[in-house]
């Protein structure tokens, strides 16, 4: 395969949670391919399963069914020791920089923790040197090495999380809403940092967010999720220029654009709210809110079909909508 082999691939990945009311379909049949040095953006509203997808790919949550291939190797078959090795190559940056770092450890201890755990360096001194280097890479001042997280603001804490993920020299990073808790000016600093790191170290990202302007900004390809399923996937510019699924269209039209000439444009608001992901039944899950819905939308599951080589859409009326 060579150059065309994706760094990470999922095949029919499923994660169902058992609840008292029935099976909750958090991730339902997701197949993605992410090429080296590229970013796949995953967007969707709360509860669509995007964070579960990210965590399932790292096996922080065990998948119910399906395969996860990292450089062609199925990691769902790995045993604990093998997975521990694998996690050095696959890292995650969490959404909330307040709860994802240990408040009782200093900045340098947090960053060095994984390296010491995995015994990456022969001496502790080497690990501390590497920590200092990482702090430099992510833009944390050296004087903060002995500070504790509560002394720092959200942006700096997020930099700690990024440095900790980079300490493993990973090839693949799941970024789970890394900028959602931050103010715009700080958000821009962190987005730039992630883009620069990607260029410098050849990183591959799965970037999870609910913010459509952020996802357009950072991704090569974008996947739109609705109730555990992928409803549309396309290259970033193509998706924004030519959305085909009614849900994607509504999502894009709902973004408040900071441009006053757009003030009076018509907003396609979608009726109602997301239905429960518990026992969703057959048919299109968006049909209840969709203005284009037909009877046949509910009679059978709607497959994801290719409109062009890179543009996939799960809608029976994708051609006409």
């Amino acid at each position: 395969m060579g150059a065309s082999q994706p760094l990470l691939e999922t095949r029919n990945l499923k994660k169902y949670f058992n609840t008292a009311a029935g099976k909750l379909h958090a991730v339902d049949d997701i197949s993605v391919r992410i090429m080296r040095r590229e970013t796949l953006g995953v967007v969707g509203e709360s509860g669509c399963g995007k964070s579960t997808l990210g965590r399932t790919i790292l096996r922080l949550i065990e998948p119910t069914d399906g395969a996860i291939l990292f450089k062609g190797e199925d990691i769902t078959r790995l045993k604990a020791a093998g997975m521990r090795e694998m996690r050095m190559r696959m890292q995650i940056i969490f959404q909330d920089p307040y709860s994802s770092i240990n408040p009782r450890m200093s900045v340098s201890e947090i960053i060095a923790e994984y390296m010491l755990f995995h015994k990456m360096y022969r001496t502790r001194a080497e690990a501390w040197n590497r920590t200092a280097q990482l702090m430099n890479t992510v833009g944390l001042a050296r004087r903060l090495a002995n500070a504790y997280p509560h002394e720092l603001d959200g942006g700096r804490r997020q930099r700690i999380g990024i440095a900790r993920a980079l300490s493993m020299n990973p090839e693949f990073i799941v970024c789970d809403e890394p900028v959602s808790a931050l103010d715009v000016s700080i958000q821009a600093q962190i987005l730039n940092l992630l883009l620069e790191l990607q260029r410098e170290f050849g990183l591959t990202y799965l970037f999870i967010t609910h913010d459509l302007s952020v996802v357009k900004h950072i991704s090569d390809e974008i996947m739109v999720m609705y109730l555990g399923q992928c409803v549309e996937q396309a290259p970033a510019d193509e998706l924004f220029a030519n959305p085909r699924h009614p849900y994607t269209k509504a999502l894009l039209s709902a973004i408040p654009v900071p441009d006053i000439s757009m003030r009076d444009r018509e907003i396609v608001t979608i009726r109602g709210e997301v239905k429960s992901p518990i026992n969703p039944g057959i048919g299109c899950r968006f049909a209840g809110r969709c203005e284009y819905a037909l009877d046949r939308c509910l009679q059978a599951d709607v497959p994801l079909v290719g409109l062009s080589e890179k543009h996939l859409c799960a809608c029976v009326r994708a051609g006409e909508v």
Partner: protein
Amino acid sequence: MAETLLEVKDLAVKYKTDLETVFAVNGISFSLNKGETLGIVGETGAGKTTTALTILRLLPERVGVVGKGQVLFEGEDLLALPEHDMMKKRGDKISMIFQDPMTSLNPVHTIGGQIAEALRLHNEKNRTREQLEARVDEVLEMVGIPPSRKGDYPHQFSGGMKQRVVIAMALACEPDLLIADEPTTALDVTIQAQVLLLMRELRDRLQTAMILITHDLGVVAQMCDRVAVMYAGELVEKGTLADIFTGARHHPYTQGLFGSIPKLEDESKTLLHPIDGLMPDPTDLPEGCRFLPRCPHACEKCKEKQEDIALSPTHTARCHMLERKV
């Protein structure tokens, strides 16, 4: 000339504790005409919410102290009113929508009961119980909730529906001024679009003046007539929507704010132009211009106290560099 509804003059608020004093709002002035919407934009800690709480006199007791200034509502200084008179205004003439609909509703009362409470407390027309109930149905219908659900409790509603309930409560008495503090920040985009559309319709129908507090410039562009940009307790730039969004000259912070947002028309994977550094510590603000440590154009003159510079009759910015004719 439009009639002035609210005028805030040189308002300063600090939070005093035994350990430190936080200078949250430092001498801000603005006015709002009847039926107009003012957007206050800024980042966390800029003093936006403190401003709103001061207007409603809801600052935490003893800790929140108004240092100076006046809040004139229909010509009357709210800060000088006895608490009893202020209670009559709150909810009736001025009401507020808080950011988080999950915590601003009482979980042990039905939503109908909570809407009726405001009506009962401000019952000048001496409406009977039946008339009050009819009014509750009316406002629920107005925000798109079937009145049959008024006996339900907050936990039975989704986030977007709860925010509609909060809006219904705020508008039940048809206030002259509505303060909305990040009303859609906790909501998903499609629900945000529904709520914003609803707020816009109701505002236009009831002719309510509104102060919309947000960090989202997109929301401002869609909702507001005038905009004030707040930074470290000061209004660094004020103007009409067009002044701020399309005007040629801006305060460097406003420029930074616009440079920080990812734009949809940009190609993907281009770098943004963020503002370096962080907001100053509000317990220890820099002398002169508060933006000085982060400003790319900083010079000696920035260390002096800054005055508002008029860029046009409607547009001012607090930066001495704009004094020069360009």
